[in-house]
């Protein structure tokens, strides 16, 4: 097996899917000749040709809409939007069309498309190049929202997303693109699109997170371990539909829950998890559910990014507060 970075795993999954299924097409800005702004699609045009790997004009709304049309007609388009911050004009196509095609046609038409976009901070950019607004998408019935946090999960989840018969929004934490490598077998094995992944077992509190925050949370968990606090860390991975059962089971065991996300707090997806815990786990909770998130402000310029995005220290501090409560 070969060790691969997350972005290489994405590339591998795309290659695999295109090899297996001729209806898989890749389209986006600079995805072909240039190989993608983060090189996620590097080499695909050489292997599969410019007919299947399409450089598009800078027209995000149309990239999404063309994908809906292709998908409705039986193709499996995998569209790339260069940064999540550029995806706001695609919302119309995703919300008003992609997500509702199955429902409107009672399944006579479906929309098996994937829309990939790098998201999140950590590359010292700002605003459009660093934002995390996955909650805009998790709000929409009929869309799947997937966020991998490791090369292996990126490979398996992307294959699953491409094979899935419904529209999937696939957000890739760009800070992790080249941060770590792990062995990724090109075995064609997809991962389930409706399951959380428990990254670490623990009995004292449950920390629920996703994307790049998985890494910071695991670092915090290590610190807490040294202090005698055993955190269970859950990577949500598939935000919609949410595998709440795994989270609930863990919280019933630990009695405490901390939710960590890189997006700003208000209206963030952490609020949805907290609300469900309030509805279903009240009698198991020993302490209030807490959230560690970015502050409710605009992504700042690089030097203040570390104040904005949750750090292992902030995560550990919040965990201690929960432990001190009860």
């Amino acid at each position, binding site marked *: 097996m070969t060790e691969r970075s997350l972005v290489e795993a994405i590339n591998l999954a795309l290659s695999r899917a295109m090899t297996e299924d001729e209806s898989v097409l890749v389209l986006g800005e600079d995805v072909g*000749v*240039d190989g993608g702004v983060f090189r996620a699609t590097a080499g695909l045009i050489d292997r599969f040709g410019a007919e299947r790997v399409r450089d598009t004009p800078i*027209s*995000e709304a149309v990239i999404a809409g063309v994908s809906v049309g292709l998908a409705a007609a039986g193709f499996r388009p995998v569209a790339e939007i260069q940064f999540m911050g550029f995806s706001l004009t695609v919302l119309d196509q995703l919300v008003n069309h992609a997500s509702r095609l199955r429902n409107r046609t009672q399944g006579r038409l479906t929309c098996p498309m994937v829309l990939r976009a790098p998201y999140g901070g950590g590359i010292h950019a700002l*605003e*459009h190049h660093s934002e995390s607004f996955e909650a805009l998408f998790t709000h929409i019935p009929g869309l799947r929202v997937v966020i991998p946090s490791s090369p292996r999960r990126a490979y398996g989840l992307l294959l699953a997303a491409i094979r899935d018969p419904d529209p999937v929004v696939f957000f890739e934490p760009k800070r992790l693109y080249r941060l770590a490598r792990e062995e990724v077998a090109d075995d064609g094995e997809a991962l389930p699109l409706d399951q959380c992944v428990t990254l670490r077992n623990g009995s004292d509190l449950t920390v629920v997170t996703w994307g790049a925050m998985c890494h910071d949370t695991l670092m915090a968990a290590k610190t807490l371990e040294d202090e005698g606090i055993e955190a269970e860390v859950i990577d949500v991975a598939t935000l919609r539909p949410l595998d709440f059962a795994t989270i609930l089971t863990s919280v019933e065991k630990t009695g405490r829950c901390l939710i960590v996300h890189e997006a700003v707090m208000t209206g963030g997806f952490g609020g949805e998890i907290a609300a469900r815990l309030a509805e279903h786990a009240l009698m198991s909770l020993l302490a209030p559910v807490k959230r560690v998130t970015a502050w409710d402000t605009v992504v700042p*310029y690089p030097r*203040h990014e570390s104040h*904005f995005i949750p750090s292992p220290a902030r995560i550990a501090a919040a965990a201690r507060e929960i432990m001190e409560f009860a």
Partner: protein
Amino acid sequence: MRNRTGRATRQMTQGETMARAATKSPSRASSATSATKRSTRSTKTAKATADVPSNEALVGYYKQMLVIRRFEEKAGQLYGMGLIGGFCHLYIGQEAVVVGMQAAIGEGDTVVTSYRDHGHMLACGMEARGVMAELTGRIGGYSKGKGGSMHMFSREKNFFGGHGIVGAQVPIGTGLGFRHKYQKTDRVSLTYLGDGAVNQGQVYESFNMAALWKLPVIFIIENNKYGMGTSVQRAAAGPSLAERGHAYGIPGEEVDGMSVLAVKAAGEKAVKHCRAGKGPFILEMKTYRYRGHSMSDPAKYRTKEELNKMRQEHDPIDNLRRVLMEQGVAEDALKKVDREIKDLITDAADFAQQSPEPDPSELWTDILVDA
């Protein structure tokens, strides 16, 4: 190549027409502004009638272009030193466009552009110190270090940004044109966009509204041949970007964007059109960026030969320098200008490194009015 009138007689080659005409026959310079390629009924070539500027004015344009060039070179250095975060899009090669357009407008006219914006700000009269300090994210920057390279503004200089989303500034510029008309001024909105942006839907929604309501908007398409890594030929259908407003009845012209005088002449014509209440105008500036799309772009999608040819034969600053020498401007005077600019940029770079970083508490300011 060129007939006696100095007018281009073959397909346009950027800068060349102007340079030759200007060098050999300065008095005819402004008649050689046109890009004759693909001229159609709706896309007339620019036949400028403006007077040839004085030596003093020419030196002024030279100075402004060189300020932008040296500023950008310094920004590239600071980026390389890790002092500038995020993405940084340099304007080197395109200087004649903003300097020529700025020379064509007056007090109260507004400017808006996208993210390759340092040159526009400097041309608008914004200070090099404030722009550079914004790049380095310092409190002395135009956005107090919160906006970065792509997000700066100046109410005083009527510069409405610096915007990061491709094409999204075009409706904003249309709104500025609406304001000019609504307030019954004869001011115009210079709305810049790139060749990549011309394939965004909101550009056409803007064209329609601007034409429908006869708004004084000059849509300046800076065609530097590449939208990120994709060439115009691979991204844009149709014979000419200048014709993109045809369906809305918006006149358009191709302009040699490597010649500041050609730009100025075309700009003056468009401004006159707008001030007369005739509605919007499109100028397609044929230009070229010497650097990658951003500092992180190695620009492998084009050849070194192509780049070198542009630099050697069509450089807007070198060409104007030659004109100035022909006009009898002393080399010493130009060297003095060069030195002054070097000092200005060194000062800006020093300031940008010495100005304090904003306090973390700035994270919570300017979200809503009382925040």
